[in-house]
């Protein structure tokens, strides 16, 4: 933390809060985001994939799988489900690779398919389990939370959001997609994405407030 921040957030004033540092605020929450440099040349790899270049599948799988797994992990409960969805997503991507138009951004195309896979996976699971877990209240802070950061973590926080809002926040903050890319990935408009994100942050702030008031009592 910079010296200025130390003055503003002296030790002991807000000991229970995780302090957002200056760079986090300036960047608008970028620490979770997968660096965009890691997605460089994706469009070229996609074109080579369509042309059956044998190196392309490994390059694309290596570059995109961590972000996709993180996306699925934030949408479903278990790591096993997320792994299954990741494999299913790649199979779906392979089947419909002809629908990618060279020159178009790759990330919205990938996330649109991943989103569909997640919806199909959810429906399939629901058919099997026939029960749902209520997520209306903010879940307990998990024990694996960072020792420096005893407040709620990203995953526990967004778990309290409705599915559509969680999806948008995850794509924005974890996937590192722009508003336009999220709009493309969700077959929506930029205005609708902004609205969902705004409602999500409002809801999260209220939930944090409730939690804090509960903790104070």
């Amino acid at each position: 933390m910079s010296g200025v921040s130390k003055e503003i957030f002296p030790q002991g004033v807000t000991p229970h809060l995780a302090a957002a540092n200056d760079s986090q605020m300036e960047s608008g929450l970028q620490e979770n985001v997968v660096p965009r440099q890691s997605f460089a040349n994706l469009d070229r790899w996609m074109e080579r994939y369509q042309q059956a270049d044998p190196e392309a599948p490994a390059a694309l799988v290596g570059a995109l799988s961590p972000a996709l797994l993180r996306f699925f992990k934030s949408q479903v409960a278990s790591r096993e489900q997320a792994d299954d969805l990741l494999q299913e997503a790649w199979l779906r991507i392979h089947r419909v690779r002809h629908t990618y138009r060279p020159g178009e951004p790759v990330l919205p195309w990938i996330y649109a398919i991943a989103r569909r896979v997640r919806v199909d996976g959810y429906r399939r699971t629901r058919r099997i389990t026939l029960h749902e877990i209520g997520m209306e209240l903010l879940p307990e802070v998990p024990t694996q939370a960072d020792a420096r950061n005893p407040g709620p973590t990203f995953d526990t926080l967004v778990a309290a959001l409705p599915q559509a809002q969680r999806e948008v926040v995850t794509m924005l903050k974890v996937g590192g997609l722009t508003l336009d890319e999220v709009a493309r990935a969700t077959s929506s408009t930029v205005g609708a994405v902004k609205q969902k994100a705004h409602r999500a942050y409002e809801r999260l702030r209220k939930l944090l407030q409730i939690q804090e008031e509960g903790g104070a009592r």
Partner: protein
Amino acid sequence: MSYSMNCKDVAKALSEESRLPLQAQDHVRSCNLCRELVSALNSSIPVDPPSPATLRQIAKGIGTNLRPVRPLAPARHFFRAFVGIFFSIVALDVYRRGAFAIAVMTPLQTAAILSVLAVSTGLLTYSLVHQMVPGSRHRISPRLPPVGIPISLTIVIAVLFQFQHEQNFWENAWACIRAGAPIGALAAVAFWLMLRRGAILSPSMTGAATGLLAGLVGTSVLEIHCPNLDAWHILASHLGAAMLCALAGLVIGLAAEVNVYAADSPFKREPQGDIE
């Protein structure tokens, strides 16, 4: 003059910009809740990356027997093709049946109803063309046209034409539906031939939109051909034919969707991506 932000402004700023403006940063520094929100959204939870073995397995799975595929044609080509199919079927059918309605409608009625049908066709075609490619930019939500167009057409018909009490209402309506629905079915087959390589994301939504577009082919033919200007008749049979087609498209799309997610593990199925 300085403008101080409150918590709502910060939430708005977070949803609009990737970098928080200075005023928002000032507020975050002074507000525990906003600071906690920013920090929590920014916190990183270690998620084990996929194992190299898993990645190798996936890459090997999709790389086996990899064959080149031809990307979808540009959107404008599909747009022209859809519009071409639409107007070709309308023109051929009107030529065969005769344009009797044009003779009895006022110029205002003719211009208004045909304009609304043309705009509806354009909107639906635009939406469908963009639904073909995942991750396309939608200036209008794809959910809007299948709902908004029937409502708009209902309002326009109710405003343009008079409600009368005609005899043999159901016989006349049934005759028009029997004429309009098969035209819609024919158009739907042609549209499906165009759509079958894409539109993989939401079969139910695409089905409803395709059905409605195909149904509007029948509606357009009936609007030009049928001289019955009773608003009830036009709503029940001319627009009804389009609604029937949209419903059929929705049902087929839903069936396709259920077929996808109810299937066993996808890894048990044969990959079908190698089209060319």
